């Protein structure tokens, strides 16, 4: 039987982590991630969760101690945000290259300077190349469910990669919603304890995390790349297994909304998609074939799935809570690359929005759709809110 609780996204994620029974939790506090760590500390203290909780002195050590634990073959979890993610950046590469299936929650937050605790996605998108699987959720329920699914995905033999689950700071992390908590019994059925051959073993000593010269280094990277691509199908399999047991599912790397016949589609990561879907409904009531695609998984990137969902599209817009200075939003770059590879030649616009926590209104989304539908704008990148079009 499911238990409905009124909790925040952070608390929902902590509940998901509790159900996944990580044996080691290592984390350093940073707003707006702190509540996850606090709840987990409480659960460990109250013996609701049998886990070693490590009070590390930095995010760098949070990731490296999680790696040490993961190397012992146990399930390890950490959480961070923004500067914390950037501070541990070199460790992300160690962990993914070493194929340690750590799960990390990242509370998407702006990166300094200017200093800001509010949400955008520049932190995680700057780490797309770190070799981690990246998932973006929309709300507290999905946060809980993906906390659990992330461990299953990370530890899958064909994947064996770390997974970063991203929650929009405050918008998801601190918003209270009714969340259905699966039973421990059901999650135990879905996610057995971690079992791996790839570990330090006291009875069978090995060396891990080694140096590889030019003659084989590329092969190791190729294997890493293939493992990452495997996650595209595995996330679907895992989600359907989860749905069978828990009764809730999300599909796969993309969440499509009314895209089957859609001519005009907005694409985005995370919580803003709820607003986009409302605008889709409004436009549909006016007879316009609008649609929405939430990219749930940014790495590996779902190229085929995206192209399939855009088969009737005449023009698209990509909302980016991110800007790669001197170019464009990173999601936009990725989407356009996929379109080119699949021979889809349609107009695409980039809407830079929500930077440093800037509010995005329904009217803003409406205007994005208007631009995409009219197709008259010759410039491609617009800073929403500032009303500034790229004029480079």
């Amino acid at each position, binding site marked *: 039987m499911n238990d409905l609780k009124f909790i925040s996204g952070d608390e929902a994620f902590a509940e998901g982590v509790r159900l996944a029974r990580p*044996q080691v939790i290592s984390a350093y506090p940073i707003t707006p991630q702190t509540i996850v760590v606090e709840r987990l500390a409480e659960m460990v203290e109250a013996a609701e969760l049998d886990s070693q909780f*490590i009070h*590390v002195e930095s995010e*760098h*050590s949070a990731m490296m101690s999680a790696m*040490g634990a993961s190397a012992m073959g146990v399930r390890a979890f950490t959480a961070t945000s923004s500067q914390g993610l950037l501070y541990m950046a070199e460790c992300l590469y160690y962990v993914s290259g070493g194929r340690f299936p750590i799960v990390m929650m990242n509370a998407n937050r702006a990166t300094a300077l200017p200093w800001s605790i509010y949400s955008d996605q520049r932190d995680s998108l700057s780490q797309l190349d770190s070799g981690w699987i990246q998932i973006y959720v929309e709300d507290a329920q999905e946060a809980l469910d993906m906390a659990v699914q992330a461990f299953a995905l990370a530890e899958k033999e064909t994947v064996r990669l770390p997974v970063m689950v991203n929650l929009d700071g405050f918008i998801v992390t601190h918003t209270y919603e009714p969340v259905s908590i699966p039973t421990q019994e059901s999650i135990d059925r879905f996610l057995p304890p971690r079992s791996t051959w790839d570990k330090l073993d006291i009875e069978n000593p*090995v060396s*891990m995390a080694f140096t590889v010269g030019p003659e084989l280094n590329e092969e190791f990277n190729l294997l890493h790349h293939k493992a990452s691509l495997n996650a595209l199908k595995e996330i679907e399999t895992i989600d359907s297994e989860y749905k069978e047991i828990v009764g809730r599912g999300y599909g796969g790397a993309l969440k499509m909304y009314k895209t089957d016949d859609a001519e005009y589609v907005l694409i985005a990561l995370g919580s803003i998609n709820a607003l986009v879907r409302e605008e889709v409904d409004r436009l549909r009531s006016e007879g316009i074939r609008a649609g929405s695609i939430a990219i749930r998984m940014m790495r590996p990137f779902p190229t085929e799935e995206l192209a399939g969902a855009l088969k009737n599209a005449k023009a698209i817009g990509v909302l980016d809570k991110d800007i790669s200075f001197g170019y464009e939003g990173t999601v936009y770059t990725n989407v356009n690359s996929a379109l080119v590879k699949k021979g889809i030649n349609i107009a695409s616009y980039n809407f830079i929005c929500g930077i440093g926590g800037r509010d995005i209104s329904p009217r803003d989304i409406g205007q994005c759709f208007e631009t995409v539908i009219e197709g008259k704008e010759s410039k491609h990148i617009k800073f929403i809110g500032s009303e500034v079009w790229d004029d480079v």
Partner: protein
Amino acid sequence: MSESINARNISDDEFFYGHKACAGCGGSLAVRMALKVLGERTFLTLPAGCMSAVSFNYPQMSYANNAIISAFASTAAVMTGLAAGAKSLKLDDYHILGIAGDGGTADIGIQALSGMIDRNDKGIYICYDNEAYMNTGIQKSGLTPFGATTTTTPAVGGGKGNIKQKKNLFEIVAAHNIAYAATASVGYIEDFANKVQRASLVQGTSFIHVLAPCPTGWGIDTSETIEVAREVVDTGLWYLAEYYDGEYHLNKRPKEFQDVTHYIKRQGRFKHLTDEDIEHIVESRDKTWERILRNYK
């Protein structure tokens, strides 16, 4: 406490071999001896540095025990993770060992080390100190002594090389109120081996700072490592001590110091130093010893 270790009873087993360390390497001797004392059931981590560079070259691995590389700053953090993993697996009869160089410990790794001691996580941290970043080509570290020429403190244009004193790493560590810390030298290898054993009996974190000459970086012959590693102690420029029960203990108190000039002059890294500079080194040594004799048992 177990029987003390000596040349007759030390294990014949080897856990660190087939590596590509330079001839006369003091660091590799420290690693070899530490593993002989601790044995096969040791989980070892090493950061970037000579001892990982010479031993983790796929597919040629040089450790017979479990070993893993850490990020440069993260020896102690990985030790913490290994210990947490071992605890959750309810393993028994095992050691957690971290071995890092002077730069990896006193500079980039000091934050993680401080955190680990603060948490008192189970593990033996050994800093092998060859007094510069030797693996990257002899750059100054926080433990490079006064007067040493390095590639980043070159003694050119009449300069003296490094003009800073070594950080007092041993006392920085002790200031955390650690259960056990010690200094050692590969020149007194029996003393070092026994300190490793003592460190291994501590429930939480223990620490050993072992001086380990580097012929390449110090400008000495590969056959001189042990001699120089003894001389640095006998001249009083290094000392053998322990910290436990909240107090410092001096292990070896030279009746009279050997000649500092001989120690300095035999090393290429000091060859530019004048008699005045050596006088300065002697004065610093005497000041250090005043403090040691005042504060150490």
